[in-house]
């Protein structure tokens, strides 16, 4: 019998690029025997737009509309990164109010990304009520973005030296209202998804990351904190005003899909807590420290690496300037670059074919930031 089983024919299953379970546009090539995956190989590059090349052809100011398109569900960390990298090379100061507004934007974006992830994670196991709720609720935050920046998805709001617009009248109250609403909805989300018996059954013990290896594998963000390792860029290397805000670092033991889910679930609460503090503490003052005319704007020669904690983990930009009107090189490090290729291939070995999309979603694989 054992001999028969090992002789079982190996089939190849191409999951994607057109496949409803794949997050975005990528392909996972699976070698299966029966329902078990023997080997997995990811194929990326379906979304390559050559952003890094395009930025070498653009003025510094023209780079801001480009970078936000690198990560679609959560564009703000990109703008934040580019702005901070330029500020670091130039040595430009950012007014305190602008820093608070940036934190507000980043945390709102984090909540939208987590709500989107909830939809994806539960959609991957067929719980279609959850995406309908969470993506519908996400729209309330998108409305806030639209009021503040003019764009629902792409904001182009954070730029070098500060932010583009001040908060409209009554905006803080509307943010508070939306936060109250989302906090009240968390109870429903818990009942529907996080405490659902079938979700627990499916998520526990699936997609286990080796805890000892997690740091070496380059795991960041919620998957790392889901291994019980407390690292977060907001605490390790505080940027903007995160060191003046009080929030907790969420970790969860278990190393599996469920612990990653719980980390994200609890971080929504922390984000709401941060946003409330930001709204209370926000000082008045200027919002922008203007630079030279954008058409003649030369950034002095130098390089800088900056990082931001996005909803999927550490988002880093390496910006090199040669003192000219255009960047020499902007290199983007998306968390999904490691999670979506090396780690995913590793985790899929020996998994069930039913869990591919499940594991992918729990790692927050986002193809546009892999290939840029």
């Amino acid at each position, binding site marked *: 019998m054992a001999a028969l089983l090992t002789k079982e024919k190996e089939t190849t299953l191409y999951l994607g690029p057109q496949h409803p379970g794949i997050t975005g546009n990528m392909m996972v090539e699976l070698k299966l025997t029966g329902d078990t995956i023997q080997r997995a190989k990811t194929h990326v590059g379906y979304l390559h737009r050559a952003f890094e090349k395009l930025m070498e052809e653009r003025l510094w100011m023209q780079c801001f509309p480009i970078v936000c398109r690198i990560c679609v569900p959560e564009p703000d960390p990109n703008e934040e990164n580019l702005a901070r990298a330029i500020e670091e090379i130039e040595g430009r100061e950012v007014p305190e109010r602008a820093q608070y507004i940036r934190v507000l934007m980043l945390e709102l974006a984090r909540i939208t990304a987590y709500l989107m992830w909830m939809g994806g994670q539960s959609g991957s196991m067929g*719980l279609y009520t959850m995406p309908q*709720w969470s993506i*519908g609720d996400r729209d309330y935050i998108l409305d806030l973005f639209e009021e503040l920046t003019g764009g629902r998805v792409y904001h182009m709001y954070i730029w070098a030296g500060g932010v583009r617009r001040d908060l409209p009248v009554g905006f803080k109250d509307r943010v508070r209202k939306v936060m109250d609403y989302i906090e009240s909805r968390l109870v429903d989300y818990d009942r*529907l998804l996080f405490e659902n018996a079938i979700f627990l059954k499916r998520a526990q013990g699936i997609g286990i990351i080796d805890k000892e290896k997690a740091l070496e594998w380059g795991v960041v963000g919620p998957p790392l904190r889901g291994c019980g390792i407390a690292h977060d860029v907001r605490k390790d290397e505080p940027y903007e005003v995160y060191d003046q805000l009080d929030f907790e670092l969420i970790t969860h033991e278990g190393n599996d899909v469920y612990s990653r889910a719980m980390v994200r679930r609890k971080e929504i609460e922390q984000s709401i807590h941060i946003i409330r503090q930001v709204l209370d503490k926000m000082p008045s003052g200027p919002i922008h420290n203007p630079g030279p005319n954008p058409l003649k704007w030369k950034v002095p020669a130098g390089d800088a690496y900056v990082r931001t904690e996005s909803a999927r983990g550490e988002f880093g930009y390496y910006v090199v300037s040669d003192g000219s009107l255009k960047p020499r090189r902007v290199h983007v490090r998306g968390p999904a670059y490691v999670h979506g290729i090396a780690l995913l291939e590793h985790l899929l070995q020996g998994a069930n074919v039913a869990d591919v*999309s499940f594991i992918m979603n729990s790692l927050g694989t986002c193809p546009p930031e892999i290939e840029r």
Partner: protein
Amino acid sequence: MSPMNIIWMIAMPFIGAAIGLLYIGISRNITARVQNRFGPPPYQNIIDIIKLYSKKTAITHGVMFHLGPVLAITGTISTLMFVPILTGNYPIYLFSFQGDLILLMYIMVFGCLAMALGAGQSGNPNSAIGVSRGLTQMFGYEVPFVIALIILMVRFDTSSVLDIIKAQDTVAHWNIFRSPFSFIAAIAAFLGMMGNKPFDIVFAPAEISSGPPSEYGGKYLALMQTNRGLFAFVKLVLYTDLFLGGAGDFITLILKTFALFLIPLFIGIVNPRFRTEQAMTFFWKWPTAIGVVGLVLVLL
């Protein structure tokens, strides 16, 4: 055979399919309300099927691929012929005979097997995985289903559906109250048969595209959707006959079948799907155990 019976024989598949599709349409509406939205009109599924029939169909994967949906709907229609639909003053039962319950047990599987053969020939690995999952799941839910039927057969000492209906003359005598163990086992099997949420592992879009039908499009898919509506109706009527005392007229029939239809629907809205082996464990654990307890009680 009376001429009335022949007319019913021809008309019943169409009526059944229409009712089944309307139920599925209404279920889409109910789901939409739970999900904070309006949803499509209740007759949306019928529009979909008209559209699918009007599409060009230029796929070929061999003979069984063409025959699969046809055989499936044949199987469903023949099942319909053996299920007593109405009893009462204007009865509709076409080919009922002594022992039809045993025949039904077999013939209900026929449609699924035909689909499996057809989808298996399409060459799509998603279909192949879907077929193997479907057959596995069938093994799962057939066990409690058969046990439930055996309980009824032993209890009433008959294998005719009509006799079982006759035994349930008052509400208190409905089998849902008289043999609850059998009902629980059967309703668990029913969840698996309807393919609603915890047990939709066969069609799981996020895992295997849409499983067996992933190569079927156009008119084939139209046939399969019709089959889905009709098969839902057949199963609902059979369960009404077995556990809710049958139906005397169409209004009772619709009320009873719709009430039954709501059970898998509401479970499906708020639950994700099982993995294959979890579904198997589920079927073979509680419903089977309860069924066996019921069987022991009846035999004693």
